[in-house]
């Protein structure tokens, strides 16, 4: 794979790979712990169990990431628009009733039998490449408003499609990624500040509407999305003029919806300093943490309960290493394209980490965002490893020919 002559230039960023390995080990260990209560005792053969499948995805992902490193990222960038277009295409067809499979009220996956293909994950990567490619034009061009709006458009297309699925979390991470990439590329700060201001006002209006507006004026939003926001703010589910019975119903519903967040908090908090021990977590074994959530979106709460604050710090440290080595790669990249790709990947991963862990400790409302490499899920693992492959790619090819 590597030609001896170019060996010294094509050194991989070892530190990042070590941190990666650490995260992958944790991933397998805790997917195991989260599912052992329900699966190990059941009749599933070992090769069908979640932790084994996670390892398979790791292997596949590493393979894909390594394959990508063979090709200079400039070549990849030339195909970025094609990739971008392809993911847009998949994002559209996943919305079509019989192609995209409906689960829990959302159409996000295309069922390929052995693999649940989630277009939004790949769309994020394609977006980063396409955006990096777009932004790597000369800096003066970026000062033109037209270019700025085209960049925003590049971001809003997948944003809108993903939002339609609906998958608010995945759509949301596109925004900081895009904005940070634009910032690093050299877009004038005023443009960015103004658009952030507008986005902020829109966001506040939306929140005000969800929390305070009477039913007639409420923006059309899926019920569970509204409820998640209400749960986060601890607001009453019932309308102001509801009857006593409706209020009682609403309170019950509120208890149900707050349940998951409350259980996550209890999991995390009861871990204390050292945690309960691997596979000793009560929340999963007693099924207070709902089965479906424990091993993907809320995997962090399992780690937090079983390894305590010490474990949480280890996880944060591993992510910090990955992210900051990514920034180092960005700094050492030989051109703006490489820098932007690295920064984009770093921001994307960081957004995932911040929102997911924040969700587990209730500083962020619940959104269905996986924790990169630790959550169970083929698409998420593949894309995380491909993204890291891109970063390594930038690092390997940091010296010109």
């Amino acid at each position, binding site marked *: 794979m590597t030609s001896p002559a170019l060996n010294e230039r094509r050194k991989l960023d070892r530190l990042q790979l070590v941190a990666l390995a650490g995260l992958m080990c944790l991933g397998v260990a805790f997917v195991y712990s989260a599912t052992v209560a329900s699966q190990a005792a059941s009749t599933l053969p070992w090769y069908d169990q979640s932790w084994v499948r996670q390892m398979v995805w790791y292997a596949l992902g590493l393979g894909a990431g390594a394959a990508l490193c063979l090709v200079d990222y400039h070549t990849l960038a030339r195909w970025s628009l094609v990739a971008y277009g392809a993911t847009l295409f998949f994002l559209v067809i996943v919305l079509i009733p019989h192609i995209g499979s409906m689960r829990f009220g959302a159409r996000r996956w295309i069922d390929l039998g052995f693999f649940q293909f989630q277009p939004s994950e790949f769309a994020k990567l394609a977006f980063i490449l396409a955006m990096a490619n777009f932004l790597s034009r000369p800096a003066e061009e970026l000062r033109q408003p037209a270019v700025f709006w085209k960049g925003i458009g590049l971001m809003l297309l997948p944003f809108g499609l993903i939002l339609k699925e609906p998958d608010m979390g995945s759509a949301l991470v596109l925004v900081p990624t895009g904005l940070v990439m634009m910032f*690093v590329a050299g877009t004038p700060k005023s443009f960015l500040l103004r658009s952030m201001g507008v986005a902020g006002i829109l966001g506040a209006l939306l929140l005000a509407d969800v929390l305070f507006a009477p039913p007639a004026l409420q923006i059309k939003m899926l019920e569970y999305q509204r409820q998640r926001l209400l749960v986060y703010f601890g607001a009453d589910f019932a309308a102001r003029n509801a009857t006593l019975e409706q209020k009682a119903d609403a309170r019950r519903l509120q208890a149900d919806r707050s349940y998951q967040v409350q259980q996550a908090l209890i999991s995390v908090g009861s871990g204390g*300093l050292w945690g309960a021990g691997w596979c000793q977590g*009560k929340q999963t074994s*007693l*099924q207070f943490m709902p089965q479906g959530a424990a091993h993907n979106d809320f995997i962090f709460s399992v780690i937090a309960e079983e390894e305590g604050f010490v474990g949480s710090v280890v996880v944060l440290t591993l992510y*910090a290493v990955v992210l900051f080595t990514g920034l180092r790669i960005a700094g050492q990249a030989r051109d703006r394209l490489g820098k932007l790709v690295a920064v984009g990947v770093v921001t994307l991963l960081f957004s995932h*980490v911040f929102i997911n862990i*924040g969700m587990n400790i209730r500083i962020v409302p619940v959104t269905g965002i996986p924790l990169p490499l630790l959550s169970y899920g083929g698409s998420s693992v593949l894309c995380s490893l491909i993204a890291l492959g891109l970063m390594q790619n930038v690092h390997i090819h940091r010296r010109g020919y």
Partner: protein
Amino acid sequence: MLILDELKKNDPQLRLVAGMLAAGLFILLAGLWWVQVVSAREYQGHLETQSYRTVRLPAMRGKILDREGRVLAENRPSYNLSLYLDDLRKQFKMASDAEYARATNARARFIAAQEKQLGRPLTKAEEKRFAFTTGQMEQLRGQARYRVASALVSQVGQELGQPLTLDPAKFARDYETRLAMPYTVIPDASPEQVARFEEQITGSPGADVDLQPVRSYPLGTTAAHLLGYLQRDDDSQAGEDPDFNYRLPDYRGVTGIEWGFDSWLRGRAGGESMLVNNLGYYQTNDVWSAPEPGHNVVLTIDLDLQRAAEESLLSHQGPDARAAIVVMDVQTGDVLAMVSAPEINPDYLANDPKFLSDPKLRPEMNRATQQNYAPGSIFKPIVGLAALEAGLNPDALVDNPGYVYVGRRHIADLAPPGQYNFRSAIIESCNTYFITVGLRAGIENVVRMAGKFHLGERTGLPTRQETTGIFPALKQVQSPDWRDGDSANICIGQGEMAVTPIQMAVAYAAIANGGTIFWPRLVERIEPQDPASGGTTTNFPSGLVRGNIGVSGRSLKILRDAMLAETVEGTGQPAQVPGLQICGKTGTAQVMNERNQEVDRTTWFASFAPYEHPRYAVVVMVESGTFGGPTCAPIAHDIYAEILKKENAPAPAALAEAN
């Protein structure tokens, strides 16, 4: 360091990005610190609250024994045939799934029928109307559970040969509130039922036998009033944890010894914690505080005398008699027997409520201590003592024409007309004599003497149910409203006075033992149930002296001789027991209505024996009897016969020790 390097770079934008990254990670770190370290205990508490249930374990109640250690109240195991719902979880799930499948099929068919009718497929909005709400889903699951449990219950019923049904409302409520505890189907099953159950059912999941202790009174209604009864009370006692999720059945005493010594008998409840899962099903348990068993209470009662008294009363007066008997040890004040008739069943709920509320029988009342009665002639010895102490010559004669006038009041005398001295007045119970000498001695002296006997005051028993009796105070008899007629009544034990049988027993014991008024002792000691456990025994001192009547030995001898003659020659003859010298006094008190007509009689026989060295006092009171002699004395006779038998029989304990 990696992070610091990034923050110090030349590239301002990357620097800003690095800074934001660091800030974001720091926020997460701070948040995790807050949740996992600062609030850890609070969340640990939440975890325990939702996954642990505490159960209060009542302690084994102490027994109540007689002075020789024979059991009056104890505990027996009761076997409850119960369902253990966590064993049925799998069946519940299967049944729920089946119900749900059935319901979805029904719904699909209904939708198909609608579509056929309309001729077009239903829109999403219309279909939504037929969606199952969470309420309906829960109802489905509840029905499925009920079906499974009900099938098991009727299977049990079939095996036991009796039809059994499961109350759906109770089952649902129990599932909501007490899921982790066993659900009782047949409480307190008979041994036969348990045997059949063990044969046929045990081993199949979900049903098993659950053991609880229950109070039992092996001697039936014997000493029922003394023992008292229990009521269900699951509350935490002082010094125990106030919060428990579940409480096993516990009881507290309401009256009698069960009430008076309740905290000793009860011991201290313990606790265990059960681990439950998110649905509330039981997983494991762990006893963190073992219950401390209660202490046994040893009474001064002698079961032989108690039973003899009760049987004698029953055979002479029948089951509807309203009566009281007290037997006391005159040298120590120990209560050897206390009977109140009609008896109730200490297993309170086994009593017929109509019987309990009968206004005439009033069976719940302890007639030996709780009811006021006119003493009638049995008060005359006290009047006599007052007169003797005031200087009466016992040989002086008083003329009895068969009546006496006090002022303008005519008081009849049942003693045959003639001349009476002290001795014959006691023998024949002559009203005229005692009124005469009483008035001559002065009512104040009589009142003072009665005061020394502590009439009109409680005797201080540790159980509830005691009344003070009535006796006029000195001030009252000195007031101008007090007439000679009232004094005359007092002299014959009628009018403005009333006593309880226990007061009379204490009084006659004083006459017997030379003048000491004791505090009657009911409980001898409190000891731990298991002698090997190392608990402490509390002894209650016997012979606690309350006072002394301060009467000369000479007066007492005169009185005692007269009372001996009373049983030999006088109205007390039916009490005679060959081989025992008994001193006694009969009494027949009239109960008057407002118009001073006799509506009822209270008959008495108060006595002590043996004459030479008195040891026992026996007081018998029967409501609505004929006369003290024929009604009450024969019962005393039976009791003394039993006493004599015991005195003469070799002590079995002594024999065993000698061997």
